[in-house]
């Protein structure tokens, strides 16, 4: 049985400013140049958040840029220790996060990439070798798997990557939306496979800043400045979020202007 238990976590980043990081500027500031910023400021990307996820969870995390989505996913994946609070993970976690090294190595052949990507994500080389034929087939790459990835078209690369990632069977899946994507020609087959990939996992957590998340997630957590703004049935939370975003953009009149002021003051 898999489980993610997060108890009162905060993630505080130190934001280094140019003045603080650069010795020359530090001295020049000392010599009477005007100081523009404080040497260092902090930012709570996640601010005292608690959450327990059990099997069957299909959670979407939404919020505007900088709301703390990626940070929360990193913590849930066990890749980033929070500055405060505790995280308990049970089960085989599998994370597809931006910059996770799940990218392809262009110098290696497609075949070697199948092995290496799987291995870096926690599979054994043997288990990956067993999947090679299926991946060659699904990606449509066939014998081209023997050539270096550098010789592939960008569509082929995307198909290979997608096929490798979705061939895996995680217990807990934590992913940034858009990390596993496929080109349009491939999209229909890909959608079915992505659904299957999700269905195989006990717990799925996805981040998104769009409303499309309601199609895949059952519950949605709305993050705003590192805090939970809403957490509940996907459609409700997404509707509320969409209305709020439209309001911020000044596009919709359905939102009370006083509400926007209140939000912006926060």
């Amino acid at each position, binding site marked *: 049985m898999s489980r993610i238990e997060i108890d009162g976590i905060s993630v505080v*980043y*130190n934001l280094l400013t140019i003045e603080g*990081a650069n*010795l020359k500027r530090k001295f020049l500031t000392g010599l009477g140049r005007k100081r523009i910023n404080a040497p260092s400021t902090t930012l709570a990307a996640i601010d005292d958040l608690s959450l327990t996820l059990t099997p069957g969870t299909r959670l979407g995390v939404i919020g505007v840029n900088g709301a703390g989505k990626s940070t929360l996913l*990193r913590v849930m*994946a*066990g*890749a*980033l*220790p929070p*500055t405060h609070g505790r995280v308990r993970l049970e089960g085989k*976690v599998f*994370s597809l*996060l*931006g*910059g*996770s*090294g*799940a990218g392809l*190595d262009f*110098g*290696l052949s497609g075949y*070697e990439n199948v092995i*290496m990507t799987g*291995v*870096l*994500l*926690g599979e054994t*080389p043997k288990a990956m070798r067993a999947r090679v034929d299926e991946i060659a087939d699904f990606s449509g790459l066939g014998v081209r798997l023997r050539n270096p990835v550098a010789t592939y078209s960008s569509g082929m690369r995307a198909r290979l990557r997608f096929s490798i990632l979705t061939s895996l069977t995680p217990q807990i899946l934590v992913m940034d939306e858009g990390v596993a994507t496929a080109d349009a020609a491939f999209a229909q087959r890909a959608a079915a496979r992505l659904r299957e990939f999700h269905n195989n996992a006990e717990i799925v957590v996805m981040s998104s800043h769009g409303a499309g998340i309601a199609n895949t997630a059952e519950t949605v957590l709305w993050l705003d400045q590192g805090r939970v703004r809403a957490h509940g049935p996907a459609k409700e939370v997404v509707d509320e979020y969409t209305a709020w975003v439209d309001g911020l953009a000044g596009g919709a009149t359905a939102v009370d202007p006083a509400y926007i002021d209140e939000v912006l003051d926060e």
Partner: protein
Amino acid sequence: MRDQWAAARADIKATWRERRIWTLAALISVGNRYRRTILGPWWLTLSTVFFVFGLSFLRVGLGGGDLKNAVPYVGLGFIIFGLIAGGINVGSSTYVQAGAQLSTSQRPYSTYPMQGNAVQFIDFLHDAVVIIVIALFFSIPFTLAWGLSVLATFLIVASSIGVGLWLGPLAARFRDVGPLVSMVMRLMFFLTPIFWSIDQVTTNDRAWLAWWNPLTYQLLAFRDPILGTSHGLAPYVVTTLLAVGNLALGIVVFTKSRARIPYWVAE
């Protein structure tokens, strides 16, 4: 406090469990460096041969003697210094280079110094071929004493892993440490008896400089047994102390700083 130790222990255990992953990644990264070259990683071997001969001519030109003695002396020194210095340099850059990957991938943090040192060791194995060739060519006998050199090699690698565990986080936190280390290491090439003899300086007042340098002991512990020379027990004692000391310091610093490392290297 207890949490920190438990987390660090779990981290190091996971690295041990995943030893096949990082050795494979190390092998691939060595291969990648020479991709599409005809010689592949044997470029490393060739450039070592090239450099060793060059340095040997320099040694003979400066201090007399003949190539028959100079080549094994310089060759062994140069090759082991590559492992020693490489281990320290990779230790200081390991987390800085891992960068954002650290907080997005689930690989344990102690994996990074291990993988870096694995790369250094693979490089060393390519150089070790040169040692065998030199031994055959200059008829240096293969004796049981070579076992001491092998032991010294492992002690040097152990020391480098320790260095990676303490210097790595330090260099991630204080970015001036990296450039400082590479500056010092460049000078160390000349302060370590690679192509000059430490026995020649014992008589003048700069001898302390060579003996004060810990890398000297590591180098001698490796080179002496193969050449059949000796500088007493000191090289082995110091090399062992360096391994134990660096590992101990490494574990303490790594444990204390582990949870902060991803914050220091975040984009």
